[in-house]
């Protein structure tokens, strides 16, 4: 829901979608309809009121008759905040998808199809065909290349479906190998990387595990017990995080969006500064080396020295 102003064309598009929606619903509260259409309740009320002055053309210069216009149950709206359409003059069936709407859903489906247990059926193929046929124009081809789904991913997905804990070997960067037992809660897939979020029996807290660092997955028969706990966002910082000061070349700022999500980037011009929170200070050397010279760790001093040592040790291999 947002209060963003919409352009007249956007508002027209919403009204075209509103009529079939209201017919399908019969009666629907302003709040529910506003939520469905990503608008505020006031905007939804405005659209519904507008609808009642829309209708068929007047004949030969005469005013439109009441039944040539859309109409709603005004008492229901005014007294209970409920929308119910009482007269329609067209637009009853939902419009075709635009080429761009179809493209957005088609690409999303390609990603969904790679998820174990979702794409295994012929269902996705059928959907691809329906969307293509239901579009008003030829969508631009937007391809999401499938990533290999290995045994680790399949095993984690199965444990998630079965509601049991998994145990596995985990090797975090710069940390010793540990064996974890985890109640799986959610699998995040972002930019082709898979992460498991779950309740870690070892740490007694919600943790996120990059699946590339997971091996020897074994399902257990321990039913999951902590799925109700608060699940933080994927890159949400925590209280125990280290704080670091960075200087970042402006062009690189968008590439660091995941790190910078909850920090303020200040300054203007070629170089910006940001204070970020990271779960492990030792990860900064990897970020800095990846963006060679475009990301500079200014502090803490220990992290800055670690970056220099990291690059130095890397270079030593070539000397």
């Amino acid at each position, binding site marked *: 829901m947002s209060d963003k102003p919409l352009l007249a064309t956007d508002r027209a598009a919403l009204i075209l979608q509103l009529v079939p929606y209201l017919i399908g619903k019969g009666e629907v509260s302003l709040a529910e309809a506003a939520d469905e259409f990503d608008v505020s309740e006031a905007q939804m009320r405005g659209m519904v009121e507008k609808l009642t*002055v829309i209708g068929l053309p007047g004949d030969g210069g005469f005013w439109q008759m009441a039944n040539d216009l859309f109409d709603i149950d005004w008492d229901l709206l005014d007294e209970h905040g409920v929308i119910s359409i009482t007269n329609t003059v067209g637009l009853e069936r939902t419009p075709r998808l635009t080429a761009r709407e179809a493209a*957005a859903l088609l690409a999303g489906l390609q990603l969904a199809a790679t998820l174990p247990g979702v794409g295994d059926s012929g269902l996705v193929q059928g959907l691809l065909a329906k969307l293509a*046929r239901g579009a008003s124009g030829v969508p631009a081809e937007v391809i999401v290349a499938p990533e290999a789904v290995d045994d680790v991913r399949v095993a984690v997905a199965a444990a998630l479906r079965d509601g049991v804990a998994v145990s596995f070997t985990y090797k975090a960067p710069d940390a010793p190998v540990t064996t974890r037992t985890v109640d799986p809660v959610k699998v995040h897939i972002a930019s082709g990387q898979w992460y498991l979020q779950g309740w870690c029996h070892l740490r007694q807290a919600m943790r996120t595990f990059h699946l590339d660092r997971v091996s020897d997955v074994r399902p257990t028969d321990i039913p999951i017990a902590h799925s109700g706990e608060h699940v933080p966002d994927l890159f949400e910082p925590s209280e125990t995080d280290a704080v670091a000061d960075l200087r970042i070349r402006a062009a690189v700022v968008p590439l660091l969006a995941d790190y910078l999500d909850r920090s303020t980037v200040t300054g203007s011009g070629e170089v910006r500064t940001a204070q970020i929170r990271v779960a492990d200070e030792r990860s900064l050397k990897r970020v800095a080396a990846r963006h060679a010279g475009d990301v500079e760790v200014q502090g803490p001093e220990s992290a800055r020295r670690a970056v220099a040592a990291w690059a130095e040790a890397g270079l030593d291999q070539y000397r």
Partner: protein
Amino acid sequence: MSRVATESTRIAPEERLVNLVVALLATDQGLTKDTILTSVSGYREQSEAGAGKDALEKMFERDKENLRGLGVPIETIGDFADPDDLREARYRVPTSEYELPVDIDFTPAELAVLNLAGGVWSESSMSSQARSGLRKIRALGNEVDAPIIGYSPRINLREPAFAPLQRAIEQAREVEFDYLKAGDDTPGRRRVRPLALLEYEGRWHVYGFDRDQDAERTFLLSRIASSVQVTKRGFDPSLRDGAGDKALSGLHAVAARQQALLEVAPGTEAALRLSRRASDAEQGIRVPYVDVHVFADELASYGPEVRVVQPDELREQVIRRLERTLAAHTDGGPR
């Protein structure tokens, strides 16, 4: 009871647009422009108030374009005697092309998958497009299965070049942009017929026909160094057929051709992340890559955990990155 607009009410443009759609859907033989301007509410009031014919006609042309942009298929039926004479042209919206075909319905399981698929776009224009498409499908009122929980798939889309390229593909029009080719220091101008957009290993690419190279090429969106200019030069839309598959196999072919020979320290982050994509070699591992700079960025992040044996270009790029990192973090360097 209905609250009808009085003559003094200013008609909002969205009312006029929707009135026009309703009118054009209700007619089989089509309406002439004159009929529309004098009878459809929104135009009629302005006609009656004495608005100039030119201004009204311009408004009608704009409205038609905007509605077509929304996917409303406005058809023009010309004068049979003289097809180029649009004075007697009639306009209509064929119901069958406006509405979602009646035989398209979605099963509860399909809707659950679509809901998941529609949620993958994090904050981008594609996200609102997906939501709008889903809304249309949900308005069919089909039953839906319980949501698929446990997965949160996301596609990141931050490249400003995406939207104009998508538009150019839809309209089959050539584009121009400055492109920083791997290994070059200054960007060069490219003229491209864009055919498909492709996310590969977390990065967006556009596949198209390069007019200057006279061959198909794949470009990384993050290397486009200017805004994308959509030109008026059109191309044969059939060039787009099967472009997605060609683009994908093209990138696979590049990856198969470009293999780096690497030595990795066992048990490290580099070993874990690279071995998933690697094949064993006599000395170390072989890892395919598509873009030398993108791969060098990744390898530099591993510092001493990986050593590039071959090729030389990749090796030099990694060394350059490590040197720059060192320089930026050494006393006397930037602070």
